[in-house]
């Protein structure tokens, strides 16, 4: 084996891989790539950091120094002695007014609380498909239970209302198989007959298990929740009917639906609330008194139904024409085709849009404060800020309202995104 002595050193083993330069790994690399990749980006990063600093330096001391246990703004100021700090005591002292309004009887707070908790139980089988389908029975019962819990009074009212629906369901179940129209109109007639008869057996007495609470005593965030939940759930079926009507080939029905939808969508919700507060009572029979809550529910339901109808119309239009033709060629009639083939797919496409409408509607329930209903915003601007103890506590109250709405709306939109992923059955 000849040895080459002119070479002083021969490497016999491979050099182990050296670690990447520190500027190309870990945090440093991430910062370089994501924050300081160019001059422009560096400037943007610095500006954003400054903006974050400004926001945090204004809010953090204010929240940290916050005072929770005084009974008026003057006491807060005394304790703070000119320091920056929030006076959250308004929330601890007036939480009941913010949540329930200022007239709902204190000893009955458990009723809306219970109704609120049951709302989750009722909504769960609708929102999450994996749960047992039998839970839907409770969802169907929930409106009557919630009505009785919140308004109280005679239990016969929700029972009669429920019986009407049950009678309608049985009639539809019996005749709907042969002819949808017979079953449908028969069900309506049966329900009205039951309600008419039931009207005689509802006792007039006040002496009941749950004392009656008139609607004008409802208020606070509870009112926003009630309006939002009621109007969204009522407007969904109405919206489906309007969307189908707008697609109909019958010119008269299509015309009615188009005019209704375009009219409602063309005017702001405030004008519709004006209609509810000053104009709608002119259209009811002279001797009847329909309370403001119901009138507002009617108008907001019409409002959101028009928007939901447009969303669903988009879903119907997005379905390939082959689906309609396939349903026709199977010999399905219109109600069957819609119920079994078209609507399940169209509604699935429309879910994000419907959720958007629902979130928008829930935010819009604050507008009822303009027609002097005391919802959360109405309570803040009215009784609380006008009181001598809390005159001037703006940011704590408005921040609290914003926080509550943010939690609910952000939660709903996150749910909608989850649902979209869940329902994405096509392979993309």
């Amino acid at each position: 084996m000849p040895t080459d002595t002119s070479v002083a050193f021969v490497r016999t083993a491979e050099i182990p891989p050296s670690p990447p330069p520190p500027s190309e790994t870990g945090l440093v690399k991430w910062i370089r790539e994501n924050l300081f990749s160019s001059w422009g980006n560096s400037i943007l990063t610095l500006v954003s950091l400054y903006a974050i600093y400004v926001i945090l330096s204004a809010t953090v001391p204010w929240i940290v120094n916050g005072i929770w246990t005084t009974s008026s703004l003057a006491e807060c100021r005394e304790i703070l002695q000119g320091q920056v700090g929030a006076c959250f005591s308004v929330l601890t002292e007036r939480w009941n007014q913010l949540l329930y309004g200022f007239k709902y009887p204190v000893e009955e707070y458990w009723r809306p609380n219970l109704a609120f908790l049951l709302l989750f139980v009722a909504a769960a089988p609708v929102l999450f498909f994996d749960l047992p389908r039998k839970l839907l029975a409770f969802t169907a019962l929930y409106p009557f239970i919630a009505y009785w819990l919140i308004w109280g009074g005679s239990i016969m009212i929700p029972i009669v209302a429920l019986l009407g629906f049950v009678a309608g369901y049985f009639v539809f179940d019996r005749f709907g198989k042969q002819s949808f129209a017979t079953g449908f109109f028969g069900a309506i007639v049966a329900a009205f007959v039951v309600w008419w008869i039931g009207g005689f057996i509802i006792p007039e007495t006040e002496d009941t298990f749950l004392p009656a609470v008139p609607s004008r005593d409802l208020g606070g965030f509870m009112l926003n929740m009630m309006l939002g939940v009621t109007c969204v759930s009522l407007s969904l079926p109405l919206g489906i009917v309007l969307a189908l009507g707008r697609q109909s080939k019958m010119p008269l029905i299509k015309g009615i639906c188009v005019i209704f939808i375009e009219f409602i969508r063309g005017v702001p919700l405030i004008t519709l609330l004006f209609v509810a507060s000053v104009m709608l009572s002119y259209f009811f029979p002279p001797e009847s008194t329909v309370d403001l809550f119901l009138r507002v529910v009617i108008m907001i339901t019409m409002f959101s139904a028009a928007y939901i109808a447009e969303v669903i119309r988009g879903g119907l239009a997005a379905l390939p024409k082959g689906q309609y033709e396939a349903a026709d060629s199977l010999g399905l009639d219109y109600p069957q085709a819609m119920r079994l083939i078209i609507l399940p797919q169209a509604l699935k496409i429309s879910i994000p849009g419907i959720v958007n409408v629902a979130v928008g509607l829930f935010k819009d329930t604050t507008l009822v404060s303009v027609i002097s209903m005391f919802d959360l915003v109405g309570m803040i601007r009215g009784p609380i800020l006008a009181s001598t103890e809390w005159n001037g506590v703006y940011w704590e109250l408005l921040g609290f309202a914003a926080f509550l709405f943010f939690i609910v709306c952000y939660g709903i939109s996150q749910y909608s995104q989850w649902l979209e992923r869940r329902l994405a059955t096509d392979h993309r």
Partner: protein
Amino acid sequence: MSTASDPEQAGFRLSMLFNDTRYRSLTFQAIAAILLALSIWYLGNNLIQNLREAGLNISFGFFGEPAGYDINQRLIEYDSQSSHGRAAVVGILNTLLVAFLACVTATVFGVIAGVLRLSNNWLVSKLMAFYVEIFRNIPVLIWIIIIFTIMTAVLPSPRAFRGDDPASSMFLDAVAFTNRGVYIPGPSFNAPLFEAAAMNWLLVLAVLVASFFGSKAIGSWASRVQEETGDRPKTLLMTLGVWIVPVAILLFIMGLTWNFPELKGFNFSGGIKIGGPLIALWFALSIYTGAFIAENVRAGIQAISKGQTEAAGALGLRPGRIMNLVILPQALRVIIPPLISQYLNITKNSSLAIAVGYADITATLGGITLNQTGRAIECVLLLMLFYLTISLLISAFMNVYNNSIKLKER
């Protein structure tokens, strides 16, 4: 749906009204027509009875009567002796003013936030996502109230500007932020060509429109030269000249001067006063709707597939031209329809002015006029008619636009 396949049947039976596709739709429409007529009759009958009991009638005569209330923020002459009709016109102009201002600024906010949200700068895109989520998930009414509270409770009163060592001072000696509103310098003419101030501004506008067409002409001239010779002449200086020189000459002839706001006594005078309610509404609407527009812009840009950029690059286009010639025209097709419906939303949401006391049409016609005259039905109907007209105009415009940019396929 398939009338042709139905066999001919002898005679007509009553059940065919429901079961035969030839008659069924007629039956249903007849039922619908009867139900509609019945409900209109029922509602109309109730209305007439209620009105008779309340001793009212439907009449629009109140429009000629003096309104008796003052409006601070107004674009045309108005005082408390003016009629309710004139108050409504002031309201309409105020609605259009705030809607226009908010549309412009919302677009600016939205485009900036939408583009920055796609930035590869992690911090900036997260910050913009935060902005979008915060503003989209909190009711606009709360934003309006928050900003109005900043205007009235945080900004200093004009008194704070007084004295030798004032607590507050004017921004650049020209703009005063006070709790009564923001005072900015206002232009006026020393040697106006017309008596009425509006005519002078119309003249300026006319010159600007002429400049617009002038710059268009320069552009098409440049394209013609490019077609003939292959070289595009430099037009930047000429375009700038066409835009600036005529207006500058006109303003110089008319003697443009700026009136700066000055502290006189307990308040500012001179310049233009923008009331707190207007600013609150304007700013809240633009920052709220801006969050929605940002999402539209982001969706529009993301809707253009990456292949488009790569194809344009393969053709040898430079990045700037890729954006201008390939990406933007396609993205705008996606962005503009929802953008216009956001403008519609701004116009409708401007009716929330009533919550902060800005005198738009809802606050004048639907608020004070309604309460003073008690003419609920007339006022609310006219109010709806106004918004309906605006909405229909905007959606008609949108349809025309959509048809003009529709993909011409097959």
